[in-house]
């Protein structure tokens, strides 16, 4: 037991013996008229206590569906059809809706992109915060008011008393996201899922929100899953990064490893397609599109877009292989890829 840990950082740095969240072979499918879309395909990963993990990938790679699957808020026609989500030893997929409701907010909180849309337009910020505190924490009116003020101060909202009386439309986007974060941490959740928390915010506000997420982790020791397609944001905030492609984790690595020794061809493509200040006019892109999830490619789902693809990739699905400590990648040709990178330099 890490009883001597003084800061959550120390906890985060330690390889957790029992992860707080472990997803095993999760399959979430959408039953559409055109057929069954296998959005999450035997997805497995784990999150340690106090860890901030970035979940990155293109649109349609299943990042958000992963988040919604964990809290069991997949909308029809989507459905979790197989797999386990072990959260602090309990399998969330087996819980009843009532049990799950008890976990949402209290143990696992979620924040969304477009924070203003997440706030009820006819209730003041204070109404909404106090309501959560009253119902989830059993506080009385006065306690809830004090705590709400404190929470807003915690997320660096100036003049919290006045903001509590504001309606969502009177807040800026960054301010609204702070309120959402305040609401999310109000019940001291053990896991916070942030689904593209900075989309639609300008860069300075984005930076502040990222810092805030980090600060909240340090303060409360909560684990964070940061869903994003912004690698720069992921680099800024995460301890570890997982790359998703077509409903699978294709590569995961500690943040430093991830940027210094990317291994999966898809990761390389993602990193190459970041706009850079020194770069030319054209941003390199990964050729092709996200695969059709109803008719998934055989073997490795990335093979149609991969320049290293061989016959093996078309017929056999690659399993994750260890690249370094805590660093795995699912590719048949990791060695060739590394060799080619080295040759290119």
């Amino acid at each position, binding site marked *: 037991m890490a009883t001597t840990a003084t800061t959550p950082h120390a906890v985060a740095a330690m390889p957790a013996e029992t992860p707080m969240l472990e997803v095993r072979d999760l399959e979430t499918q959408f039953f559409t008229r055109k057929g069954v879309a296998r959005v999450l395909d035997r997805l497995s990963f784990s999150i340690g206590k106090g860890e901030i993990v970035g979940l990155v990938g293109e649109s349609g790679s299943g990042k958000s569906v992963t988040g919604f699957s964990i*809290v069991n*808020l997949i909308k029809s026609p989507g459905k979790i059809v197989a797999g386990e989500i072990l959260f*602090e030893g309990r399998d969330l997929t087996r819980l009843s809706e009532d049990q799950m*409701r*008890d*976990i*949402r*907010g*209290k*143990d696992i*909180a*979620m*924040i*969304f992109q*477009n924070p203003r*849309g*997440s*706030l*009820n*337009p*006819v*209730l003041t910020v204070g109404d909404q915060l106090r*309501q*959560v505190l009253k*119902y*989830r924490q059993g506080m009385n009116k006065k306690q809830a008011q004090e705590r709400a003020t*404190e*929470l807003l*101060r*915690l*997320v*660096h*909202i*100036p003049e919290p008393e*006045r903001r509590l*009386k*504001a*309606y969502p439309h*009177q*807040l*800026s986007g*960054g*301010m609204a996201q702070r309120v*959402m974060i305040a*609401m*999310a*941490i109000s019940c*001291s959740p*053990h896991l916070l899922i942030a689904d593209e928390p900075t989309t639609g915010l300008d860069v*300075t*506000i984005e930076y*502040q929100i990222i810092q805030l997420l980090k600060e909240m982790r340090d*303060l*409360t*020791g909560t684990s964070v899953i940061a869903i994003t397609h912004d690698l720069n944001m992921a680099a800024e905030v995460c301890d570890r990064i997982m790359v998703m492609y077509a409903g699978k984790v294709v590569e995961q690595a500690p943040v430093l490893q991830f940027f210094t020794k990317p291994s999966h061809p898809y990761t390389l493509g993602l990193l190459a397609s970041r706009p850079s200040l020194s770069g030319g006019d054209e941003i390199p892109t990964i050729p092709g599109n996200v695969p059709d999830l109803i008719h998934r490619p055989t073997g490795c789902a990335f093979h149609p877009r991969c320049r290293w693809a061989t016959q093996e990739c078309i017929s056999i699905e690659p399993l994750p292989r260890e690249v370094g400590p805590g660093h795995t990648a699912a590719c048949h040709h990791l060695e060739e890829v590394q060799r080619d990178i080295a040759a290119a330099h």
Partner: protein
Amino acid sequence: MSAPTIDLPTSPVTPPASAAALAPPFRERLGDFWYTLRRNPTAMIGLFMIGVVIFAALFAQWIAPYPANEIDFAVVAQPPTREHLFGTDQFGQDIFSRVLFGARIDLMIALSAVVISLIIGSVYGAISGYVGGLTDEVAMRIMDILQGFPRFIFAMGIAFALGPGIETVVIATAVLNIPGYARLMRSSMLSAKTSQYAMAAKAIGANHRAILFKHLVPNCMIPIFVISTLQFGWAILEAAGLSFIGLGVETSRAEWGAMIQLGFQDFLQGHWWMYTFPGLAIAWTVLGFNLLGDGLQDVLDPRRR
């Protein structure tokens, strides 16, 4: 296993106030609403007309020159004079006074009917839309059945079954208006329930009742309020109509429909004032509510501005 509650210290640093943080002072929402409403002539005329009726209803006792039911056989069926502005009826009752007192009964009937149908219809429609699926389907088909009858014939049926009286008029009018509210609430609910704040409320662990009544219903109330002002007008027309055909309020009471009915008995004698003035009162009130309703629609729906 109970989770340790983590004591959150107060924030260590105060960030520089960003430009976005310095929003203009918050104006009360109601103030905003009044501000836009005042600039809408239709709504203001409607409000004025209704104001007159409400004033009459509240202060009838003091404004009216005679009590509502003072029978005086010395002045039976008098045309309008200075003593009796709107003339008198077959029993010598002052029609001007009765029109003023009538505002009371008619507004009360309309208010009760609207409130009853609003509450029942909204809750019914909200649940129907929120639950969806087969429940929704069945609930809406029941409303279809109610709406399948011609409005007034349906009201007559209810009134006939219940027997004359004020309560009858209230109930019949309320039942008539339930489907309208239910449908309106359901359609707003269908779009509101897919909103992100509903999802966010779910993600924070709110139960169905809290999501439905705390988050969604308040967001669906604006169209309901707009329709209510229009329904007021309808309710007054329907109440008066029922009384006129003798299925509503008894003719002894000072109610506009009943007064028209009473006056109509003297139609052939040419005693026009007996039914004209209560009729004008109805027209005035209904017009007022309709104008206000139209105006509100413009004010509350920014797309129509």
